[in-house]
């Protein structure tokens, strides 16, 4: 056997061992120790319902669940989720996983999605029949709140959908960053509906669902339609966990946990009022 073929054989054995390790890791993650002494989560310290530094968000709870499954203590690296969040935390190597990213975000390696949600219309009962579409004629006159992001040329999809329909002057903008001095920085847009300052808010489902489930405001949520406005303006997003691009083994372990504990995760999301949609939501 030449030294070259010996090396090749050795490499093949290593590959097999690695594959076995992956399978073992997937099957018996509770008992097989990983290289990580702990699972370090990159998270925003003040961003309910997702996370906060008191562990009150559903992403905090999900991290605990996954940590238990992997047999790893959960640690947090706190960083405001603003521009540079991913590069300053995950990609700087300071932490290992982000608990919520859209599956289209290619800065990171994504797991399988663990929920799919939609932007929703938030209205009071006195608005009448719930709006279901951006083409509802009442939106031309109603006072509408949308969220904005300060990226140049970027906007939340609802703001874009409304402006395409010429609905501009009656639209009020709320910064998606909110006032970070508040305990729920994103609440003001929904507060404004409850206080009759605006008639409709178009908000990412998890925010609206949590707000309505935690306050006494009698607000109604209706998923927007269309789900995707052509050529490419989606209102429905699959949300996954994100890890560094090279951490495929860890990603596989996480996928396994997400599959195995899907029922518990669904109950967790229900407890936070997170509305989910399916890809083929029936039209009404």
């Amino acid at each position: 056997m030449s030294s070259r073929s010996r090396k090749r054989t050795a490499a093949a054995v290593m590959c097999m061992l690695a594959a076995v390790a992956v399978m073992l890791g997937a099957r018996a993650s509770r008992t097989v120790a990983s290289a990580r002494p702990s699972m370090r989560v990159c998270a925003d310290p003040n961003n309910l319902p997702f996370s906060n530094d008191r562990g009150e968000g559903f992403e905090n709870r999900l991290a605990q669940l996954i940590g238990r499954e992997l047999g790893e203590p959960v640690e947090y690296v706190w960083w405001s989720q603003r521009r540079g969040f991913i590069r300053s935390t995950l990609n700087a190597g300071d932490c290992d996983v982000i608990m919520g990213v859209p599956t289209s975000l290619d800065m990171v390696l994504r797991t399988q999605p663990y929920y799919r949600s939609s932007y929703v219309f938030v209205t009071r009962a006195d608005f009448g029949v719930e709006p279901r579409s951006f083409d509802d004629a009442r939106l031309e006159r109603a006072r509408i709140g949308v969220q904005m992001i300060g990226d140049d040329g970027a906007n939340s999809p609802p703001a874009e959908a409304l402006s395409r329909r010429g609905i501009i002057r009656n639209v009020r903008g709320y910064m998606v960053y909110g006032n970070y001095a508040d305990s729920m920085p994103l609440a003001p847009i929904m507060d404004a509906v409850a206080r009759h300052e605006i008639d409709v808010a178009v908000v990412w489902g998890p925010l609206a669902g949590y707000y309505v489930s935690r306050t006494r405001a009698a607000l109604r949520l209706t998923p927007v339609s269309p789900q995707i406005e052509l050529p490419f303006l989606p209102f429905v997003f699959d949300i996954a966990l994100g890890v560094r691009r090279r951490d495929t083994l860890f990603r596989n372990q996480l996928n396994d946990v997400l599959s195995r504990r899907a029922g518990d995760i669904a109950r967790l999301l229900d407890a936070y009022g997170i509305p989910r949609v399916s890809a083929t939501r029936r039209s009404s």
Partner: protein
Amino acid sequence: MAFVACGACAGDASGNPAQDATARAPAVADALPNSIANDGPDDGQWARPAKDYASTRYSRLDQINASNVARLGVAWTFSTGVNRGHEAAPLVVNNTMYVVTPYPNVLYALDLATGDKKWQYRPKPRAAAQGVACCDVVNRGAAFADGKVVFNTLDGNTVAVDANTGREVWRTQLSDINKGETITMAPLVVKNRVLVGTSGGEMGIRGWLAALDLASGRVLWRAYHTGPDADVLIGPRFKPFYASDQGTDMGVKTWPGDAWKIGGAGMWGWISYDPALNLIYYGTANPGPWNPDQRPGDNKWATTLFARDPDTGEAVFAYQFSPHDLHDYDGINEQVLLDLPVNGQTRKVLVRPERNGYMYVIDRTNGQVLSADPYGYITSTRGVDLKTGRLIYEPSKYTKQGEVVREICPASPGMKDWQPSAFSPRTGLLYVPHQTLCEDAESVEANYIMGTPYVGMNVKMYAAPVPGRTRGEFLAWDIVKRKPAWSIREDLPVWSGALVTAGDVAFYGTMDGWFKAVDARNGKVLWQFRCGSGIIGQPVTYRGPNGRQYVAILSGVGGWSGAIVSGDLDPRDSSAALGFVNAMRDLPARTQKGGMLYVFALP
């Protein structure tokens, strides 16, 4: 003496046929009687980033000149211990050099004779401010006045420090990072008023400029850049030159609904001052945070030149460079104040190499645009209508989500960003460090901030398709002839400031760390030195305690253009740093981060 050289320029220009009413004869350079005394000796100091109130960045020191600069060598160095982008100008006053770093905004006092550190002052800005700053955590410098060094911190404080002891004299919280406001600009001190503006146009702020009492730090006035006239400090003295800038409460009426309340229009650049007219001049930043479709109207007073009374803050005139800004053409660039003979009359003008790509010459007594010439490759607009003052947009370059628009030139950083130019009265030339970039605004991608998915513009920048196809240029612009005198093409954007001296030497730095001295008359490179990190700082020159002339520069790459190195961005993510990374993929291989002061002298 300066006027002799410019008299020669004058002859050339008066020989040109008059193109319009604004064609001018000779340029007499400079400037303001008490900012630069043309006949007197230079004081050898550098008390504010622009050197003088006219913002010339011109020194009358001439020991170092075109014939001996080749022998320049390192006199001493100092490490700042900070790794982010160093944009500040060192200050030199009373045999002490003052250096302010990027976040965490440390102020060092250095002994000019020994290079020893005399003291340091640490303002300890809140760490969370780093997540709010849009484009690296830079600081553009301090100002010296009345025995104090005054500067701003990233988390929105203005501090005054005793120049001798390093003790804090006062500290005023001006802005709130929780609302997206940060401060990166260098203050200007005028008549015992400290002028400070806010950054954060991408974060839904409502921009302003404030004046603080130099003695106490108390806020004397604050002029907002959007909203009703009362807030903008527009009153009976306000006389804009053009009809489209006239009217009441334009800061409300040119926005949909109450979008003006989060309309951006910060102020993070440069202010000039004319003591004879008692006016300050500065420009406001881009409107935000909506994309253009959602803010129909001119969006006043974003991207606008203001002339204000520094005592009261009252606006005397305004001129909007880029009404309804489409391409993030912030209007915060410097204005160089010159006295320029036009048709036999001396006109008081300001010259602005504007972000939208035009070299504006504006009458600084009334805001009339005398000329606006392209100083680089422009596709996004067709020119400036001198009758109405309006910028004429090119409709095919209007960006829309879901559509691909290619070759928008200049790209979002503009033909020139914050990096300040310099003017020599001996040559009549303005030395303009700038970038030559275009961008494609392509399709859309989903992103995620604070738990909210959104759809963004995917901007990619690249070198403009002009001969040489480089990303930057050091341009000498002839103000009289209204065209380039010469230029040096640089592979990378020239993100440093410029300096020019009576020795007829101009200085600038490159992002891969070359500090260069060039002949101010013809652009011949006379000397260069490789610094440890890329250069995005502002060169200065001074007379040392031994009577010899020195030149100083901070090296330390970063800023919007250099964030790929200082922020460790992923070169595979072409839209990082708002699209700038695509144009800068090679930078990590060419320089390292790290802040270091270099001081040079003749042997």
